[in-house]
């Protein structure tokens, strides 16, 4: 998933007509001061770290400024921060508005109902998990008619808005629904949504775009997620690769089998360090690339657990043998293999000729991988 930073989310909101405070993004103290001096950001203003983690206010990542110099000072301090492990690269400067009440609003997917869910609460400005269920309203929205008039009226009522403010909310909800659908969002969240005079304004923006819709949204391809360098390389090669804390590398195919393999290793006292899901592939080259990627993560041992369906056992074996030739001697690792399913015999034979034995029992093979990681193979 692509998580947009607040300023990126607000750029999307702006395109769809969601009311926002006036503001500007700055990547240096100079840019921050200039944005205020040029009048792009009216004073007094707020300066906010552009990070994905929550709790910025409490963490000192949001400051206020009454002059261009103060804006510069605030930006200098925030841009030097590392917030919850995330380097701050941008600050968002916005006019400080006379805020009335703070509300909560989001659209997301309800997997059980298989419908988008509009969530509203009059208790905004705090983490929504901390709000009592009775103060949270949920409306399932059918994508065929889309967001209806009565659903919007109910939202206004829940949020305690009437008259001009209610009209303003209904327009905002239409915009938000369009963002959710047209941008292929998993989540669009405004917290807080502020009542300002006769209208309402989105003070924050949280937008998550679904990965599977990337083919129709090339504009999000450049936005990096919180992946490690190797995870990023894997993504480019379309291999699911996740780094964990342990030292055993796991290569499996399919999410369920991969998870089950991790469960077994952990039960046997092993610590999975990297998990790599080959997915469905018929291409030995992709398997070779996956192994080379695994080698770069320097695991203490590797457990290969494949059940051949779309991915045939001989394909995996060929790719593996090729990778064994290419891995630099210093990066070699002990390997325990378990391959079963389509073309099992051919796969086992290819492995055998390369000196790798396939163990068919899951528990026994996982034990061997744990032992190997402890240097006992």
């Amino acid at each position: 998933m692509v998580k947009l930073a607040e300023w990126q989310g607000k750029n999307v909101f702006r395109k769809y007509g969601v009311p926002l405070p006036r503001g500007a993004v700055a990547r240096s103290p100079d840019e921050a001061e200039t944005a205020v001096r040029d009048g792009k950001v009216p004073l007094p203003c707020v300066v906010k770290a552009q990070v994905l983690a929550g709790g910025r206010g409490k963490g000192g990542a949001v400051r206020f400024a009454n002059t261009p110099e103060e804006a510069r000072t605030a930006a200098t301090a925030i841009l030097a921060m590392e917030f919850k492990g995330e380097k701050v690269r941008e600050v968002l400067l916005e006019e400080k508005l006379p805020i009335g009440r703070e509300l909560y609003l989001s659209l997301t997917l309800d997997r059980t109902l298989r419908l988008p869910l509009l969530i509203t609460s009059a208790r905004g400005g705090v983490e929504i998990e901390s709000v009592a269920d009775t103060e949270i309203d949920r409306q399932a929205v059918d994508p065929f008619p889309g967001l209806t008039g009565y659903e919007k009226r109910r939202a206004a009522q829940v949020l305690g808005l009437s008259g001009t403010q209610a009209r303003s909310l209904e327009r905002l909800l239409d915009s938000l629904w369009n963002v959710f659908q047209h941008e292929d969002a998993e989540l669009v969240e405004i917290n807080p949504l502020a009542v300002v005079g006769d209208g309402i304004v989105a003070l924050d923006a949280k937008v998550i775009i679904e990965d599977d819709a990337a083919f129709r949204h090339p504009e999000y391809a450049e936005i990096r997620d919180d992946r490690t360098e190797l995870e990023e390389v894997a993504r480019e090669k379309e291999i699911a690769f996740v780094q964990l804390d342990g030292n055993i590398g796991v290569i499996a195919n399919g999410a369920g089998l991969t998870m089950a393999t991790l469960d077994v290793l952990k039960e046997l006292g092993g610590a999975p360090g990297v998990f790599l899901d080959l997915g469905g592939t018929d291409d030995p080259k992709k398997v070779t690339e996956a192994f080379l990627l695994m080698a770069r993560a320097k695991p203490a041992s590797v457990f290969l657990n494949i059940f051949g369906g779309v991915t045939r056992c001989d394909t995996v074996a060929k790719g593996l043998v090729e990778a064994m030739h290419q891995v630099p001697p210093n990066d070699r690792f002990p390997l325990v293999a378990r391959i079963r399913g389509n073309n099992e015999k051919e796969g086992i034979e290819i492995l055998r000729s390369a000196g790798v034995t396939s163990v068919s029992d899951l528990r026994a093979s996982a034990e061997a991988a744990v032992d190997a990681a402890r240097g006992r193979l």
Partner: protein
Amino acid sequence: MSVLVDRDTRVVVQGITGHQGTVHSRQMRQFGTTVAAGVTPGKAGTDVEGVPVFNAVRDAVEATQANASCIFVPAPYAKDALLEAVDAGIRLCVIVTEHIPFHDMLVMYHYARSKGTRIIGPNCPGIASPGKSKVGIIPNVVFQPGRVGVISRSGTLTYEIVSGIKEIGLGQSTCIGLGGDPVVGTSFVDALPLFEADPDTDVLVMVGEIGGTAEEDGAEYIHHHFTKPVVAYIAGRSAPPGKRMGHAGAIITRGKGTAETKVAALEAAVARVARFPYEIPGLVADAARGARR
């Protein structure tokens, strides 16, 4: 009897001329499935290993009386493929394609439902009833006819488990791979009544994963409505708490959706919960002895 597919199932493969479409059409036929037709726009009049190819599902249905569809069409075109099958009167669609945007799947699911079509998948291995029919990609080698039903959210893990059942000398009545996507056409709750009603199923194996609340909902259904012995397994107990889908996601699933909550819900509803895949065959054998009475 079996669940959803039988000897009268006549499959139209959408995307048959692609690599996966061709390979799996062949394997379905080797399993015993009647693959009546294939569809690839622009390829009408050709054939794939003897299976006639049509431009449109409607043409295929008129010419061959196909009554089920297996979709291999790439994700950007999968929505259109499904809508086409539904409009051609197909009432069972297995979608193998992965990476379909969930916004597309929402439209697909509700449209299909409004017309009375059942979707299995997407991103799923499909359905198979040994000795009768298979619609999907589950390897033929794992099956043998028998009386154990299987419902699973996984792909390869399903093969592993089904294969384990065969290795202890038991067989399967019907096996359904639901698919692991956020929005699926058929969930545990939808599939369970079919196995309850199936006289060929004595024991049910339910294979779940972390994420979502489908397992908890399934457990609740079993508790109230399912009378046959169930063996359950949840993959991902050791997974680190996943990357959460923002705060809104957390309040939908409030107090549900983790491995612990799923295992707890299943342990309350089902006598036999396996901790690891290799415990499943033993529990199935045990349940089967009880079921035969």
